[in-house]
């Protein structure tokens, strides 16, 4: 495969942690070019590139920027969502740890394009080291004239502030993040109004994921047409980071053109761990419905996966082999979502808790005949009925284990036991 890494091209070069080193590696060219363009031209270029949000929802990035109201006498903000807390996802961490200036450059381009002079990077609380690295890089950028009163001498004023979260999954939801950023309880807001109109501190706000922003320098520097040449089709363009974990020989973050087939990705990872058989895989982080092994030829892009009953999400690929109890996996995820639900919406507060109980008892061999149907009915009431998408996220694994692995579920109920012997992994037992 003749794919030259884009986002990860500087990974392995520790020199890029400084402004000078990053410049030597070709950095800040995109920002310099952007500053010579009109902001509208930058927005146009990004729209043309077809870049879709890499945080999970896959919303077209340039289009999102155009939702900012014009002629409003209020400051605009960019918030970089670095609260990477979707289980299985570790791509943004890599970008921030190993190439922080790429993110700073992306933030600066976005701010220039949308007319924001302040950017908040909301980073998850557990990312202590990435936060420190970012802070150092930002300080360096201020001292080198990349940030501050005149970005690269253009007269454009820009401040970037790193804000550390306190460890709640829900603060990765963009309005939950804003509440947390404002110092309140991290509870998603009812929309509309959308953040583009009423965002951080009541002002118009663009919220983009780390990886999304990291794409911007390259789009500006090399053009939308180059970006569009990578990927599956017009709607799924550009390079994508896949964070692979689970039963593969070489887990890790892989940068590939968006839309690579799961099997190809698996091969790049050295195949299944110890040559075992594939049982199931999650293509897009914990909230993506689990797919069965027969789906191994699916293309890992936004639209194909949506059509296949799952989603690309954060592109965290979790691979499970034949020794895995998928019911236990689903039960464990249900526990996660029940733990992380903020509790404000009834279907999510009560539903995630109920799903945890029912999947737990099925897994323990205490399930009832009616439990599979109960899960289907219950998860239906949880889908699309809440303020944010956490409820839908919880439905992903819970429903898919019933739909795609019905035989496993029935076996648990029929035999009144889990057919897979219990194993203790690091961190299990909770």
């Amino acid at each position, binding site marked *: 495969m003749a794919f030259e890494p884009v986002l990860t091209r500087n990974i392995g070069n520790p020199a890029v942690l400084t402004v000078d080193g990053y410049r030597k590696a070709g950095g800040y060219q995109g920002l310099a070019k952007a500053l010579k363009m009109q902001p509208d031209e930058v927005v146009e270029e990004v729209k043309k590139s077809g870049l879709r949000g890499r945080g999970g929802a896959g919303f077209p990035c340039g289009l999102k920027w155009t939702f900012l109201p014009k002629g409003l006498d209020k400051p605009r903000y960019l918030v970089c969502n670095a609260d990477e807390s979707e289980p299985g996802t570790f791509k943004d961490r890599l970008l921030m740890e190993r190439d922080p200036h790429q993110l700073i450059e992306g933030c600066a381009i976005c701010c220039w394009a949308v007319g924001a002079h302040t950017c908040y990077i909301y980073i998850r609380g557990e990312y202590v080291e990435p936060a420190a690295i970012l802070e150092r890089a930002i300080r360096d950028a201020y001292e080198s004239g990349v940030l501050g009163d005149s970005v690269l001498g253009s007269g454009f004023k820009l401040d970037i502030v790193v804000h550390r979260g306190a460890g709640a999954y829900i603060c990765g939801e963009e309005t939950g993040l804003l509440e947390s950023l404002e110092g309140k309880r991290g509870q998603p807001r009812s929309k509309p109004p959308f953040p583009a109109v009423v965002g951080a501190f009541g002002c118009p706000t663009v919220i983009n994921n780390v990886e999304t922003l990291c794409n911007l320098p390259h789009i500006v520097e090399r053009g939308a047409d180059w970006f569009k040449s990578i990927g599956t089709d017009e709607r799924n363009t550009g390079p994508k980071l896949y964070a692979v974990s689970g039963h593969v020989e070489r887990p890790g973050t892989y940068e590939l053109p968006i839309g690579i087939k799961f099997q190809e990705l698996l091969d790049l990872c050295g195949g299944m761990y110890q040559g075992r058989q594939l049982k199931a895989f999650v293509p897009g982080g914990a909230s993506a419905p689990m797919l069965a092994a027969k789906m191994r030829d699916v293309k890992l892009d936004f639209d194909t996966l949506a059509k296949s009953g799952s989603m690309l999400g954060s592109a965290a690929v979790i691979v499970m082999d034949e020794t895995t109890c998928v019911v236990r996996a689903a039960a464990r995820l249900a526990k996660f979502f029940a733990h992380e639900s903020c*509790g404000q*919406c009834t279907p999510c507060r009560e539903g995630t808790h109920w799903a945890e109980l029912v999947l737990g008892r099925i897994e323990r061999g205490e399930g009832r005949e009616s439990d599979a149907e109960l899960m289907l009915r219950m998860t239906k009431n949880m889908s699309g009925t809440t303020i944010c998408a956490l409820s839908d996220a919880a439905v992903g694994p819970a429903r898919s284990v019933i739909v795609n692995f019905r035989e496993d579920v029935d076996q648990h109920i029929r035999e009144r036991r889990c057919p897979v012997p219990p194993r203790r992994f690091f961190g299990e037992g909770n």
Partner: protein
Amino acid sequence: MPTVTIDGRTVDVPAGTNLIEAGLKVGVQIPHYCYHPRLSVVGQCRMCLVKVEGMPKLQAACATQVMKDGMVVSVDHPEVKALQEGVMEFLLINHPLDCPICDQAGECGLQDYSFKHGQSFSRFDYEDKRTYPEKERIPLGPTVLLNMNRCIQCSRCVRFTHEISKTSEISFFERGAHLEIGTFPGKPLDNELSTCVVDICPVGALTSTQFRFAERVWYLDKKPSLCTGCDVGCNITIEHRRGAIRRYKPRLNEAVNDFWMCDHGRTTFARYAAVPRLAAPRLLRGGELQGVTWKDALDAVVHKLKGRSEGAVAFLGSGFLTTEEGFLLAQLAAAVGSPHRAVSVDGGPARTIPNRQGGITGRDAAPNRRGVELAGMVPGEGGFDADALLLGDAASRCAVLFVADSDFGAAAHDPKVIARLRQARVLVVMGWADSPLAQAADIALPAATHAESEGCFVNVDGRLQRFERAFPAIGEARPGLEVLRDLLARFDPHWQGLGPEEIFARMAAALPALKGLAWRSLPAEGVKLATTGGSPP
């Protein structure tokens, strides 16, 4: 104004109206828990989801505003019905279902909506219920108890303390299924409006320490009335069982108390039980109290009023009289040619009730000083004022001193003041309370409480508001209006047998401030009077 069609019924609404309010305009009730017209919209109970044409997902009616013409909404859509059943099921799975011992039973949002929108069965297992151990009766403050097991996390109480009382005592703690409300250590729910959180709590999570277990709500009779705690004039509902008042609840009046009332006001009916009741007319003869008939009592009063040879006749009114009673008292003074008309009202702490105009503050400890003064109970030329009677020696110069009512303030219980008033040769006291003052009276006339009367109060803003009788007076007590009317009729037969409506009409004809008002057509929110200054009759 944009139009919206809800379940086939089209209505014009101001732009920005949410679908719950728009629904009410066409008679479609959209079920909801967290929405309250005076609190910020959070859309979190998810009970009000409706189908909006053109939207892929169900929309929260509380958070969806009608902005432009042609929105089409279905509430009776099968998807909506299924959603409502689902939400009800979710709400009930962890609910203790302890209705038989729950104070909210009978006025509970969960009961009502279960009946209307729920299912008749549960798929949840009893033994798995989430509970909040040790949190079944947590005092949030002096007036409110929390049973966390019953809470449906609608956040109305949280928003009330943040947005209306602005005291922020209640907050959310924890999250997910363990989300709970509570107060911060050392910061109890203790503000003047705290019991309002019990009113707005849709379930039995928050109960009032005052009302708890006092009565099953379905045994309560409810009558609209006014609070007598101060001169704000909060609109209330008197809830009683056979004349025993169990609680006051605020009643919506946007111009006055909106949806709210203060904790003090809710306790004011306690005085009707705290002071013994004067139940029959009574004369003091030779140091002994003797029961007499109404006719004898009234004749005795008139005899004293007409038969005096020297000395003044003074009338001391109170802020607890209705405006009509004040008017009749002033007319009685006029009939005997007395300029000695005064009103005594205790001052109280300032009490502020928030409303959308910014709030209204009362400072009197009685509801109607302005109305009684307006009706003519102000000293005429050379007349005694309240201080002269209560603090000075004016009473000693009185042939007859007529005090209404017997519990006009703290002074009615003060032996020194009573001794001073007692210096009048004849002391007539009318009122519901058998106060020390009533016991010292030569003639005591039992009157109805305000709950047993009807009439009007004029509040601190000069707003005239009418209230109804909640239940009949006990014993031989009669509404003050009838007593004063019968006394007046003995001077002028034109007053014979007049009812409240006719007396109001005479009052409206006599007082410029009430010009053009009629008893029957007084608007529900009251009438703001142009002037509230009192003038002699």
